[in-house]
């Protein structure tokens, strides 16, 4: 049952998604691309690109898109696919919604205790690894092509390097950088 599976998957992602949208990318990718095969790695990267240039939280964007695509690929029905995107988005929001209410009601004062702080001693460095894994998993042949296709491969490497340097050190807005890369792709690839 695809809807139950979507709900369960995005519920888990919402519950264990530490480190904001980027930290979630590893989790979403592991579940959606590698475990359930709801979409390819290239499709997943396209969604992240779309998320970056449209408003709203990346987690919500990805859940909505994944829910739609997973059901559409399976059934070909638009209305069921819309229901799929509702299911995934709701499932993603549900755990953090409940958790934040509980925290604001009861546990505000426990957030600074040594117990919570020690848990984060382990979580914080792990989230860095989670993001690194997301980067490594996306640095694949579907996104960069292979040296067998040197033209696309080296342009991809160049676009990666240019975007990294441009957004990290030159201070170019990420959206503008995506527009540049899109233009480069249109002209060169």
């Amino acid at each position, binding site marked *: 049952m695809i809807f139950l599976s979507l709900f369960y998957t995005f519920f888990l992602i*919402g519950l*264990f*998604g*530490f480190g*904001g*949208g980027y930290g979630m990318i590893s*989790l979403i990718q*592991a579940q959606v691309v590698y475990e359930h095969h709801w979409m390819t790695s*290239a499709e997943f990267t396209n969604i992240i*690109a779309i998320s970056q240039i449209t*408003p*709203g*939280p*990346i*987690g*919500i964007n990805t859940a909505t*898109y994944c829910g*739609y695509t997973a059901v*559409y690929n399976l059934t070909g029905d*638009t209305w069921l696919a819309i229901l799929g*995107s509702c299911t995934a*988005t709701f499932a993603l*929001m549900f755990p*953090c*919604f409940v*958790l*934040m209410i509980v*925290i604001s009601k009861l546990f505000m004062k426990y*957030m600074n205790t040594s*117990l919570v702080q*020690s*848990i984060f*001693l*382990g*979580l*914080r*460095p*792990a*989230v*860095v*690894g*989670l*993001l*690194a*894994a*997301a980067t490594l998993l996306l640095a694949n042949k579907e996104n960069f092509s292979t040296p067998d296709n040197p033209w*696309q491969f080296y342009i991809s490497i160049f*676009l990666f390097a240019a975007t*990294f340097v441009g*957004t*990290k050190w030159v201070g170019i807005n990420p*959206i503008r*950088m995506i527009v*540049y*890369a*899109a*233009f480069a*792709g*249109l002209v060169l*690839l």
Partner: protein
Amino acid sequence: MSSEEKAAIKPASSMLVLFATFFRIGLFTIGGGYAMIPLIEAEIVNKHKWIGKTEFLDLIAIAQSCPGVFAINISTFIGYKKRHTAGALCCALGTALPSFFIILLIAMFFHNFQDVPWVASVFAGIRPAVVALIAVPTWNMAVRAKITFINCWIPFITAILIWALGVNPIYIILAAGIGGFLYGQFIKPTE
């Protein structure tokens, strides 16, 4: 919070205002949760005065520590403070709905679009750039997480387990949380 700051905080607003405020925030911030912080601050702290500046900073720290969508965490918290569960629902929905509808529209049309040659070319150029846009926050977070000699192996092992061995990240998060708890409670105090 100072008493002056407390006095300046306005009491409950209507559900519609809560919803509309977060709908606007959701609609006008591009680039994910962290890009929303300045806009949320402008609307919630400066304009509507729903919470004080100090409380807002505490809220960001808590929302960052909690799992889930950062922007939903913040809006749920503020909504609950103003109008309990119904308020939390209004704020969370307000934040989520703009991106939900926009992405739904894109999903419906992009599906037929992505195999058109020029669209495929555009996305072939965008994809490597997107990988870099995820590499940058990895770097930034590595700096912010204050990685030391003692814990620098954790990100490496985490990345290798997920990337090379295909371990489910959920198990790693559980292990990291439990490991941190054991280390902090039993090992660190005696060091």
